[in-house]
């Protein structure tokens, strides 16, 4: 031993107490290292369309194409346009939610495996990667919201306090829910890559499970009462309805009447209840992630 130092008592060692290496991790740690998070998000945004001429425009091609098809087939050919006032707004306020969710779900699920070089070698709060996916999706949802806003104004939108409240609530529910799902799936995907295939399959279902290309009133009219409750236990359906309450209902000629006939009863209360549910889901998701994370480095 070449160095001699006076021994320090273990308790007030200048370097602090002995601790497990690598820190505790978790979403709290992600927030603590938000500078790194911001760099990862910026990298993701830059890299996704690297080398493509149209770049970010590709983010809008798919929703735009889908929107056009829904509108033409369901609105014009099947005639929903005649029954549903401002049908384009009805579709688009749902599409913003569905796209944000699918985007987070897809990229979030793959995010951990995609960063395996880092997972294997450097100790980071690994929740960082799904969180970054969520923020990238939010970045891409921004311009879509802008289009929705402009479209709503053209259709005679008069924002109401109720509408703004449901917008905030819908945003909160979908963000927390998407985060919970992305966390769980990204961790499971490390062990079984089946999960990333499952994502694509579920993605097909999602479009049909929310009142986007058909009005919610049709569900009530045709399905039994108990089904309505099952239908509304889907956080995505609630978020879509909350967005529609904000943009679509307040764009129609008589918002009061539209809300009464097209929206479920006690929408706001249902939304608040759902927010509590998804928050619990997020806590569970974090626990699952934390449990599986210990074996990421060896199994990835």
């Amino acid at each position, binding site marked *: *031993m070449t160095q001699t130092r006076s021994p320090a*008592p273990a308790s007030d060692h200048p370097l602090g107490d*002995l601790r497990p290496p*690598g820190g505790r991790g978790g979403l709290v740690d992600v927030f603590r290292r938000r*500078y790194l998070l911001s760099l990862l998000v910026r990298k993701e945004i830059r*890299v996704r369309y690297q080398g493509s001429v149209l770049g970010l425009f590709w983010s809008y091609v798919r929703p735009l194409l889908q929107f056009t098809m829904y509108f033409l087939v369901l609105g014009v050919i099947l005639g929903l346009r005649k029954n549903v006032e401002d049908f384009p707004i009805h579709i688009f306020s749902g599409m913003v939610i569905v796209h944000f969710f699918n985007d987070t779900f897809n990229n979030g699920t793959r995010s951990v495996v995609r960063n395996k070089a880092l997972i294997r070698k*450097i100790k980071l709060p690994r929740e960082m990667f799904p969180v970054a996916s969520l923020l990238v999706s939010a970045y891409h949802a921004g311009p879509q919201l802008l289009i929705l806003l402009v479209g709503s104004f053209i259709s005679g939108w008069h924002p109401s306090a109720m509408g703004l409240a449901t917008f905030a609530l819908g945003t909160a529910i979908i963000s927390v829910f998407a985060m919970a799902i992305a966390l769980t799936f990204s961790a499971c995907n490390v062990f079984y890559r089946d999960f990333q295939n499952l994502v694509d399959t579920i993605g097909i279902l999602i479009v049909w499970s929310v009142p986007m290309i058909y009005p919610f009133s049709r569900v009530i009219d045709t399905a039994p009462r108990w089904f309505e409750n099952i239908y509304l236990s889907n956080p995505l359906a609630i978020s879509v309805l909350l967005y529609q309450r904000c943009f679509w209902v307040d764009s129609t000629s008589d918002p009061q009447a539209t809300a009464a006939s097209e929206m479920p009863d006690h929408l706001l209360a249902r939304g608040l209840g759902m927010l509590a549910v998804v928050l619990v889901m997020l806590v569970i998701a974090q626990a699952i992630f934390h449990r599986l994370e210990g074996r990421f480095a060896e199994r990835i």
Partner: protein
Amino acid sequence: MAPVIVVKEVNKQFRLQRTRTLKQTVMSLVKRKPITDTFLALQDVSFRVPEGQSVALMGLNGSGKSTLLKLISGVMAPDHGRVRVRGHVAGLIEVGAGFHPDLTGRENVYLNAAILGMSEAEISEKFDSIVDFSGVERFIDTEVGNYSSGMFMRLGFAVCIHTECDIFLIDEVLAVGDRPFKKKCMERIHKLRYDGRTIVFVSHNYNQVQELCDRALVLESGRLAFDGSVEDAGHYLGYDEDEDDPDAGEF
């Protein structure tokens, strides 16, 4: 002296999945063949490192050196036993991990330094020094994908070596770069040592170990086979008698 690294009765076992698909799994079950293989990478390893000591981790390939380093850095967790550290752990474990080929050298320096735990202000302050150390100034605004492997490693190395740390882990990375760069790196590591940092150094290069380390640990098939002075480790490993051993000399 209060230890800064405590490794106590550590076991680490890897499970190797033999079957990759459901079909293979079912077939193995039918044929009563094992689905997984287990492999003990580390068995009952215990040691303590006091502050400021520089320890070499030696042993053949597959003896568990890198696994032990990953346990100390926190990338992996032990199955049994405890690993405890004091202060900030950093290291030359994977230089250039997290470098993205589509980002420029500059962007990668910021990203990589943040990954290693530096704050924005710290990176800005050290940026010039990092670039200067790497010697790739001319290409700093070029995408890293266009770098030669040497340039890539040098930039990664430069970032790593600028992280503030109390425990510095080095995993056989000194094989990269040309001779002047290697020399510069060794000088830097020696400076860390004289500044009182604790160092864990994984190397097959006995000369470097002799130069840098106060103590050597030798791992054999996951067990701690030797713990003592570097000189005795040399005797133990037979470096002094077997000059033709490819492990003994330069890489």
